[in-house]
Structures are given as C-alpha cells and as structure tokens.
C-alpha cells in the first residue's frame, strides 16, 4: 500500500491531520515524506494512506511534490524563512570593546620603563640615606 508517490495523512504528532507524500522508502518501518509536513523520515504506523497516487520520481524535490499536489488542489503553506537576529550584546562584551578602542599601549610602555629606573634610583637613594646614617 505504501509506495513512492502515495498520498498519506499523518495521524500522530504535531503535524497530524496534514498531507504527507511518500518520497522514498528507507526500510520496512520507515519512509521519507514531504508535502504539507516537514521533509523528514516517518514511521509507517504514523501514516494513514489514501487511494491517491502522485507521479513522482524517487527522492523528488520539495518543489516537485508541491507542484504535483497543486494539480489535485492540495495547497502547501510555505514556511517563512528564518531571519537571523543579531544577538544583544552583553554589558561585559561592550565594556571590553570600549577598552579595545582606546589603546594607548605604545605610550604606556616607555612610561613603565621610565618608572622602573626611578624606583631603582629611589632604592639607591634609600641605600645612600642608610649609608649616610
């Protein structure tokens, strides 16, 4: 009963009550379906076959199935393509960016170098003061 091109109705799951066309046979228990349902694998127990048959090839594309279904006045609602939303930036990431924007690193480095000898001088001065004592 279940063969390629057979129009079935889904009985189980969230797509129950919708038209599914068998596109491919996987094994004794599972078939590949398309049509009003999402193109996917489906258990035969979840399908109720009708007496209608579509003339389609094995592994027919979604557009082919839809055009064939239109001929027997079964319309397929096209799902809206998902638009990728930009992720809202967290506060931490924003603060990182702002820090990256002002990089006065080259100016800092020489400052540090200058500071180090200053400390040494201080130490020396301390030593000197000790020696003086």
């Amino acid at each position: 009963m279940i063969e390629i091109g057979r129009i079935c109705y889904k009985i189980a799951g969230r797509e129950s009550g919708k038209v599914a066309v068998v596109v491919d046979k996987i094994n004794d228990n599972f078939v590949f379906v398309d049509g009003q349902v999402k193109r996917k694998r489906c258990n035969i127990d979840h399908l109720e076959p009708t007496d209608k048959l579509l003339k389609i090839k094995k592994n027919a594309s979604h557009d082919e199935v839809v055009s064939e279904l239109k001929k027997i006045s079964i319309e397929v609602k096209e799902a809206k393509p998902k638009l990728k939303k930009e992720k809202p930036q967290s506060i931490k990431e924003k603060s990182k960016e702002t820090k990256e924007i002002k990089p006065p690193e080259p100016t800092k480095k020489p400052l540090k170098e200058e500071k180090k000898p200053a400390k040494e001088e201080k130490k020396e001065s301390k030593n000197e003061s000790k020696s003086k004592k």
Partner: protein
Amino acid sequence: MPSPRRRSRSLRIVYKKLPGGRLTIHYHKKKPSKAQCAGCGRALAGVPRERPYKMRNLPKTMKRPERMFGGIFCTVCSRRKLKDMVRK
C-alpha cells in the same frame, strides 16, 4: 483540635511525618481534577491542572499537546478519529 476554618474539607489534608517521628497535618489548597479524554475518559497527559493564577501565567503551548485534538482527545482516540476522517 484544629482551628474551625480548617475543620471543613475546603483544604486538602496532608499528613507529614516529622523527623522526630511525630505526625502533623499540613493544609494544602486543592487542585482541579485531571483533564479527561472526551472519547474514552482516560486522564490526559501533558495538560497541567493548577490554580488559576498559575494557569494564567503559563504559555498556551504548555497547556496542551501541540497535536490535532491536543488537550481534548487522548492519542489513541485522536488517531482513530483521524483515520475515520481520512477513510471517509
């Protein structure tokens, strides 16, 4: 003797065993009974029964299965119903 307002059965009685072995009575608010299948009368799965203030805050998708006849018929009855619809 419990206080007069707790002597009626408007609140659910729950017996709790304390760590010392003593029994006490806790009073809980009652929940509505489980949702039943309109075909066979079996208790439905996936349909929460809570106090109205909790049900109000739940999204619609969490209140019933997202299936045809979800929250009305059980899976067995809905399959039979759909098969009948297709065969006619």
